[in-house]
């Protein structure tokens, strides 16, 4: 070996040793760092890794159902056949939609919605393309499924209202959650979650909703669920049973169809509301899936106000149906006795003006009972004049007018019973005597809802008990018994006067609703008509030949009322019928009330006997026929 080579070999060995030492130093750093990460800090990183992989998912609770008094399902949870699209499973969302559109109908709106959602949310989360498919459509998607990229048939649960418009106002509907409504309950943020927006659905939303379940899942880095680690099913919502009788409700809706009208039927003792009908209505199922803009606009523009539940949310002057209150106020104040007569010449003079009776020629001398029977205006002007507004107001309040019952319908209105104090406070003017007269015949400031007039009639017929309307029989395991009602302190002998008058209205020749009496023995009703003047036909119009309401535009025609109870011999049910701009109580409202009351009486358990008691929540539907 050459010397020079020897030298450089020695140098090489030295340098190699130095390099190796340096390398060992670097490796020692790496070993140290590994120890720090994997031993010293390990616990912290285990936590971070678990945070990464574990994710909580909420499970929507099953919504409580709503039943009528016989267990008929009014709000159901049905299998909702739908089609979802998962963007990550298709190359082009648009192409997938095109392919799907060849199989089932997809509107331009749906298409846009899906494309917008696809642009916004994460690729693996599914987008609902179409809901509530028919079985045929769903089957077609299923058969073609494998050839449709990213399209998946899926069966969810959605709210369904089997009776559609017949119950729209009572049960209400559920719809998608607004941003303002997302509160503390995280379940509200679930896509596709629905909450009650009106009616019963809104009133007992918390009970119906239930408690969300949850599951802990392991997700991958893209958020896709790999497996379930634990599951908590949550609590299903509570079922509710209503006092409503769906069969009668449907019949009432049919009878009112075509008019802007409302009808309430209630049990005069328990307050059970059997019918709460308002027309026209809308299909609540439209709202569940999201109502189309054209339909919504149509509802908004409709002069018949289909979205308004007129039974509780419509405030109208009671007209002559208020005369019973005036009569009882006069008796109560002692300014009239049942035997007092008032002479009606067709008009009277008071406070610088002439007050006319609806009957031009006048009624002659009338007792109170006959004044009710003939609905004489002059008699009640006189009665009101003697009684004074404040006594009338007090009596009206004893009959439940002027305040909301708050019995479970969220959209309920209070109505209005005027008084001297009210006028000063709200109008800043002092009360005029003439206004007392107007109030006495149910016009002027007075405002009532159909449910208030039904309850008023019930209180007249049940012997003066302050019965309240009741819509809930039970919610979940909470049973709502009908409360024992307090007396309203109107003596029976006073009540008997007006009840006799009401009997006269319906069952005596000359009564304003004699034409709308029930012929069946033992089923007779006793009622009171009401016609509320909306517009007075001017002299010029009279000269132009306009004499009758039919000749006026709908908006200007008089409102029609009829309140009644039945059977007269042993009262059990009260009814109120309102027909907006129906022109005449006796012609537009009384026949409707008669027909509906007749149906109610046909089902009256006291009449047909042998009705098994139905426990709340129990789904039993006994055959209820006339023969049974």
């Amino acid at each position, binding site marked *: 070996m050459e010397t020079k080579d020897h030298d450089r070999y020695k140098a090489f*060995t030295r*340098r*190699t040793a130095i390099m190796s030492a340096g390398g060992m130093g670097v*490796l020692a750093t790496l070993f140290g*760092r590994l120890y720090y*990460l994997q031993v010293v800090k390990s616990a912290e990183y*285990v936590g971070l890794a*678990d945070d990464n992989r574990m994710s909580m998912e909420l499970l929507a609770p099953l919504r409580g159902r709503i039943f009528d008094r016989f267990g008929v399902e009014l709000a159901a949870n049905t299998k909702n056949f739908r089609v979802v699209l998962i963007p990550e499973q298709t190359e082009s969302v648009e192409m997938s939609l095109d392919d799907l559109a060849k199989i089932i109908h997809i509107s331009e709106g749906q298409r846009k919605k899906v494309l917008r959602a696809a642009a916004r949310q994460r690729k693996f989360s599914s987008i609902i393309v179409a809901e509530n498919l028919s079985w045929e459509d769903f089957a077609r998607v299923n058969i073609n499924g494998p050839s449709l990229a990213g399209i998946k048939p899926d069966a969810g649960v959605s709210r369904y209202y089997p009776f559609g418009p017949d119950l729209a106002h009572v049960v209400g509907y559920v719809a998608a959650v607004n941003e303002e409504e997302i509160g503390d309950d995280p379940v509200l943020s679930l896509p596709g979650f629905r909450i009650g927006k009106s009616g019963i659905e809104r009133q007992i939303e918390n009970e119906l909703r239930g408690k969300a379940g949850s599951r802990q899942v392991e997700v*991958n*880095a893209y958020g896709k669920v790999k497996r379930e680690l634990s599951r908590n099913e949550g609590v299903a919502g509570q079922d509710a049973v209503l006092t409503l009788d769906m069969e009668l409700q449907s019949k009432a809706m049919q009878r009112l169809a075509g008019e802007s009208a409302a009808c309430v039927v209630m049990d005069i003792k328990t307050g059970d509301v059997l019918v709460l009908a308002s027309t026209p209505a809308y299909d609540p199922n439209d709202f569940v899936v999201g109502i189309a803009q054209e339909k919504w606009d149509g509802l908004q523009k409709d002069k018949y106000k289909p979205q308004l539940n007129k039974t509780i949310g419509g405030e109208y002057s009671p007209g002559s149906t208020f005369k019973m209150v005036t009569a009882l106020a006069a008796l109560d104040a002692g300014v009239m006795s049942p035997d007092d007569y008032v002479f009606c010449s067709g008009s009277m003079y008071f406070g610088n003006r002439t007050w006319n009776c609806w009957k031009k020629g006048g009624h002659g001398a009338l007792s109170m009972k006959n004044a009710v029977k003939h609905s004489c205006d002059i008699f009640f002007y006189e009665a009101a004049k003697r009684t004074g507004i404040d006594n009338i107001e007090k009596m009206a309040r004893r009959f439940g007018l002027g305040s909301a019952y708050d019995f479970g319908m969220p959209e309920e209105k209070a109505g209005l019973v005027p008084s001297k104090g009210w006028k000063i406070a709200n109008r800043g003017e002092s009360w005029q005597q003439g206004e007392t007269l107007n109030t006495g015949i149910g016009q002027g400031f007075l405002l009532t809802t159909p449910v208030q007039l039904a309850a008023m009639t019930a209180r007249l017929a049940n012997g003066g008990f302050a019965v309240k309307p009741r819509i809930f029989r039970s919610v979940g395991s909470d049973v709502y018994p009908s409360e024992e009602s307090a007396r309203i302190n109107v003596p029976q002998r006073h009540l008997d006067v007006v009840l006799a008058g009401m009997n006269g209205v319906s069952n005596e020749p000359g009564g304003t609703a004699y034409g709308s009496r029930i012929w069946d023995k033992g089923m007779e009703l006793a009622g009171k008509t009401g016609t509320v003047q909306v517009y007075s036909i001017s002299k010029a119009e009279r000269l132009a030949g306009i004499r009758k309401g039919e000749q006026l535009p709908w908006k200007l025609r008089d409102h029609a009322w009829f309140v009644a109870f039945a059977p007269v011999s042993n009262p059990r049910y009260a009814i109120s019928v309102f027909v907006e701009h129906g022109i005449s109580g006796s012609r537009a409202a009384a026949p409707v009330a008669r027909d509906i009351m007749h149906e109610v009486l046909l089902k009256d358990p006291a009449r047909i006997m042998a009705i098994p008691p139905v426990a709340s929540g129990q789904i039993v539907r006994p055959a209820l026929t006339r023969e049974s």
Partner: protein
Amino acid sequence: MSFLEIMGGSGRELRLSEKFFEINWGFILLLCVIAGIGFAMLYSVAGHHLAPWASSQMIRFGVGMGVLLIVALIDIRVWMDLAYPAYGAALLLLIGVEFWGAAGMGAQRWIDLGVVQVQPSEMMKIAMVLALARYFHGISMEQVSRPFYMLPPVLIIMVPVGLVLRQPDLGTAALLMIGGIGLWIVAGLNWKIIISGLALGLVAIPFGWGSLYDYQRDRVLTFLDPERDPLGAGYNIIQSKIALGAGGLWGRGFGQGSQSQLNFLPEKQTDFIFTMLGEEMGLMGTYGLLFLYLLVMGYGVAFALESRNHFGRLLAMGICITFFLYVAINVAMVMGLIPVVGVPLPLVSYGGTAMITLLFGLGLLMSVHVHRSIEVPRTSVGLW
């Protein structure tokens, strides 16, 4: 000359069969164990399936082992004669990438030679070591530190480094440069020059920063502060550290690493496979693998020191340094000690070119060992 002559079958030289026994089979076994760890990880990451990674990795390792053995049996003098041509070829391919290269992961690294796709930068790692060893073998120790003789190694190192930086591939460029300079130091470069060179390098850093691509700067900044961009560039490092830390002492179990199996960990079958080992096998796994690597390098240094020819010594050390840099850069990277650069973990990371190149290089190391007794004059031995 015949194939037998190339294999060293003539004269007083070793016969092929003798060479075969000279191969250090313990070393070969060691490589197989390391590769086996890689197979296991690739099997785990595929959800306990051989496809798609483990199986093809096994085939590549098998081919690479064949290459290693053939390279080991070829005479060291042949490799010496081939050093410059090999470097020239690799350089041509590297220039070729400039014009005909295909892009992958945002950098031009691949070239299609019709039959196979190759990464010239990988080949250059070996070719440069060969060329430098050949050059330093041919000059005296005094000449190593003389300015005139310093020019060729500067060119041998800096030309490929410049080309690789243009691709741009920061990791490979760093590996080439550090490897080349390291070999130069081992060859006996004067300490004064080394220190003044280091000083010059520090001064050059600001200029180097300016010439970096945006994504490279991003990586460096993210390295300095991974939380800067936790869902973007910093994501890899953060998730990698979580996975390593979650592994703890004994690991989460084979196939049980949530970070790896649920895809929180990126590039887990390639550059971040060490992290996956750390998560599933814990500190025992990472220390174990590093220890095996240490053994490989120990063998390498021993092979270098026992060689009786300077070319062999330099070649063995060059391969050792390159191997060491692979390990150190990759492991430091996945632990967040240095910026994320695309350097695979030798013999374990999934990847064809890297595996073959590495086993080729280790074949040269073995060739040095097999031919350790041969003395080689400074000039070419003229086997051509």
